[in-house]
């Protein structure tokens, strides 16, 4: 479902964020990406959602070679990938409900069905009663959860999350990770970047370790949760 083949990414200023990166994730598989600050985790996820293009190698998502996607096709690829951004990227002048509804609006989902699905997604992250709030009235962790609700609301076949629990307390972080695990169990391919090594290990999923843009480890921890 997600395959990287000798991928390299050099930013315009000449900095090599990723080099010689190869791995493959089956459909319905879940994996974590870890590594130090600046290792290239966000860059990797951005390549999957076609927010950036690799400078070398080939990325395949949903069986589609992203290198062959022309400019007009980018939007469609992105609609097939739900993404949780490291910096939320919520629209501050819209309510929580409107923010979460955005992917459905873009996909042209009818109004009544939209409300149902938005409420279901907000319920999953425990923010149902905040639907009318403005994002600026939420705590950082609550904003992060709104971002998660927005990523899952359209039920995309691929879900990627950049540090989705960085602003959550340990208990809530574990619950949110469990939520991602549930999505995997119904067939969604899930890729999560995280610093929280203890939590990652407890999840017992595959772990990709980046270091200065290179894949230095790719393992499956043995202990599967507490």
């Amino acid at each position, binding site marked *: 479902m997600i395959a990287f083949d000798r991928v390299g990414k050099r930013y315009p200023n000449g900095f090599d964020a990723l080099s010689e990166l190869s791995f493959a994730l089956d459909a319905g598989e879940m994996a974590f990406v870890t590594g130090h600050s600046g290792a290239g985790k966000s860059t990797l996820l951005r390549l999957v*959602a*076609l*927010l*950036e*293009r690799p400078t070398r190698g080939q990325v395949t998502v*949903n069986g589609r070679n992203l290198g062959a996607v022309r*400019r*007009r096709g*980018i*939007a*469609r*690829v*992105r*609609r*097939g*990938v739900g*993404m949780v*951004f490291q910096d939320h*990227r*919520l*629209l*501050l*002048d819209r309510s929580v409900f409107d923010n979460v509804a*955005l*992917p459905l*609006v*873009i*996909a*042209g*989902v*009818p*109004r009544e069905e939209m409300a149902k699905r938005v409420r*279901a997604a907000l*319920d*999953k*992250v*425990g*923010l*149902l*009663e905040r639907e009318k709030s403005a994002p600026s009235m939420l705590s950082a962790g609550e904003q992060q959860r709104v971002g998660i609700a*927005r990523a*899952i609301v*359209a*039920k*995309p*076949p691929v879900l990627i999350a950049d540090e989705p629990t960085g602003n959550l307390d340990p208990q*809530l972080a574990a*619950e*949110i990770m*469990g*939520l991602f695990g*549930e*999505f995997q*169990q*119904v*067939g*969604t391919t899930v890729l999560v970047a995280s610093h929280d090594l203890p939590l990652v290990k407890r999840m017992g999923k595959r772990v990709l370790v980046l270091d200065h843009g290179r894949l230095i480890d790719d393992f499956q921890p043995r202990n599967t949760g507490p």
Partner: protein
Amino acid sequence: MNRRIEKNRPKPAAPEPRGNFSLRAWREQHLYSLFSSLGRLAARPWATALTLAVLGFALALPLLFWLLLDNARGLAGNVGEAGAISAFLKPGTDVTAVQAFAARLRARADVAAVTVKTPEQGLDEFRERSGFADALKVLHYNPLPAVLIVDPRGDPGPLAAQLRADPAVDQVQYDAQWRQRLNAILVLALRGAQVLAGLLALAALLVIGNTVRQDIAGRSEEIAVMQLLGAEAGFVRRPFLYSGFWYGTFAGVLSLMLIGIVQVILAAPLARLTAAYDHAFAAHGLGIAQMLAVLAASAALGWLGAFLAASRHIVLGQPR
């Protein structure tokens, strides 16, 4: 705060959303854009009012100028008579010969109209006007010739020369100097009017473009997020086109209102002017059809300005 996490297992992932934008989805999206753009304008009433005021002025000024020019042309038409050529026929030319000559002149392409002044008319007029009433009493017979007042069409130069050469004509009076002055003033006014109207139209375009550009700049985060979430270019652009359309429409209404106000202010002196012209000249405003045309044009202008600005500025955030 509710910290409960929904434990129901999510339903199976939906298949990849294909580009199956049904008619219904299309309608939903357009309604969404229409309402969101109107809502946006209403949400910032002050800013919107300010922008609309600027746009309204920018549209009203060239319109006012155009009206002014149009009215001035009507006025100039009434003054045009000053350029008439007077042909004094040889004294003693008989009435039928005079009428025949006038008919010949009327048939020419460069003649707009010919008025015949018989010697009797001439003497009456002369008596009335020149203050020589007493002096003329001493005349024993009418020494005046018949006069043809010829209104030229187009350049009067050659016509005057030909009349002068005609054997039936004694003398031609054609106030070249007055004609020259009037022409120079008219040319100047026209040139000045064109320059000003051009400047004003350019200013209107600049204002609309600038407004939409700043609007887009102020919503760059919104645009970026929409693009990140997979919105098509048309979807992202649509609300801007709608707000451009609204801006244009409201600005058109405002400019019509401004023109109405100006007309009210000018009504009194205009009435005096038309009275002075014995109501031969009537000032006119905009008709219903013209008003509708102004509205349509300003809405189209707003849409176009938004389209240009959006096409130019909504490219960021997309990889090549």
